[in-house]
């Protein structure tokens, strides 16, 4: 298992902060800001982990998540979903759709790092 993260988020300064944090932690970070072609971008990038914002321009993160879970090569891809909408129904929908971890904004940097490390560790287990 490598250390390649694809961050799909449309807030430039959140992207910058997360990219800085993860790069410092030894991750290769690639970013993308549009929901429309996110599934194709993820498939082409073949990341070890995806951080996916729920509310994206073009297409909802929830729809992207559902698509990814329906594709064999991304069915088990670790996905950390970020959202400013913390309603329980969003969390439940994401869990039903197969999200690996759900995190509400505003989150702390430590929480993001811990979640990414945990998801990587879980995915590495046989």
């Amino acid at each position, binding site marked *: 298992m490598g250390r390649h993260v694809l961050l799909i988020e449309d807030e430039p300064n959140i992207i910058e902060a997360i990219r800085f944090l993860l790069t410092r932690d030894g991750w290769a970070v690639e970013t993308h800001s549009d929901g429309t072609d996110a599934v194709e971008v993820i498939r082409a990038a073949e990341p070890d982990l995806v951080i996916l914002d729920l509310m994206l321009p073009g297409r909802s993160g929830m729809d992207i998540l559902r698509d990814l879970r329906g594709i064999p090569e991304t069915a088990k891809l670790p996905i950390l979903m970020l959202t400013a909408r913390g309603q329980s129904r969003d969390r439940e929908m994401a869990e039903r759709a197969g999200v690996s971890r759900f995190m*509400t*904004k505003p*989150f*702390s*940097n430590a929480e*993001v790092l811990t979640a990414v490390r945990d998801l990587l560790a879980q995915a590495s287990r046989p």
Partner: protein
Amino acid sequence: MARDTLTGSRIRERRSIAGLKQADLARQVGISASYLNLIEHNRRRIGGKLLLNIAHELGVEPSMLTQGAEAALIATLREAAADAGAVAAEIDHADEFAGRFPGWAEVLAGEHRRIASLERTVETLADRLTHDPHLAASLHEVLSTATAIHSTASILAETGELEAEWRDRFHRNLNEESRRLAESSKALVSYLDESGDADDRRGVPQEEVEAFVVARGHHFPTLETGTADPESLIRDAPELTSPAARTITREVLGRYCKDAQAMPLAAFLDAVKALGPDPLALSARFGTDLAAVFRRMATMPQGVLPWDVGLVICDASGSIVFRKQIEGFALPRYGESCPLWPMFTALGRPLVPIRRRVSQMGRSVMLFDCLAVAQPVGAPDFEADPLYQSTMLILPVKGGDGAENAAQPVGSSCRVCTRTKCRARREPSILSEGF
């Protein structure tokens, strides 16, 4: 790091602002560059003539170099760090951060205060959120901006050695995002103000009534003296636009008049002076029920009682029918309140006075003594079961002396309460941990 050891950091910052090289300043004040370097890294103490000379060369008052940032600023930074879940070691560096980057520390503290204020807005409006897409979009914008500020500020505060390029970039981002937060929060307030003037607000009679009594400080001198009656006050109140609001206000003011008649202001104030603000003693003195004393205490003129008091009344369904807000104890208008409030305990034990010390979960935990009693409303009737209302007086309590230990933690409503493992929780909170 102790605050008095930060003079060097301030000298370094001021020198940078002045555009002076270390070697140049050292030469101007007659010391070696390496010695100035030690001073600037707080490894040598400085005072006396050398400090005066450096201040002179930098064109600042010596006190600007020796006095730390204001205590309030540091306290706010510590609070921000604690809320962000920073480790103790980082919290201890709040004064160093304020000393090295006073301007950015002010920005961070200002944004922290703004977020606290927005949190209160969220609490008030949480129940509207799910029904109002415009409001949801506005709050989404605010939360996203707060996230960017939170993450960026944490990096600046917590990363030891940050390359100049990254540091400048994050400073720029912080500046951008704080401006965006200012704009989005202004837009949110403007939206709320507009909705306050619009027809939809008129559909919420309780809010009109509340606006009416709050505007008058919950106290009506002309009703006390009998120089006006409820009808004339209602007639002259522009905020009471709906018939429903006028009906409720009529009831509220009618009850006020009865309380004032049973406990005239001058006599009540004399009794408070003689007996202290003790509801049971006051109830015995005037021969009135406890709920009436609670209401009377909550409608005293400002400054008469030793503290501001809050009041909340609910019916037997738990719906809040009247509230007087008090700082630090959130009383939601919409949705369900926290079932741990003593007011609800009182509903289960009618006519029994209940007193509980509580602390409400929130940014700054404050302590309150809540006194509650549930009493039947209306005249007794053999043909109908009694209908109860519960009234709760909320008195602020000073912390210390173990007062916190005796307090029962309560929330405002589940949706905006971050308390975990609560036996009374009905639904998950919309707020992330630590927000």
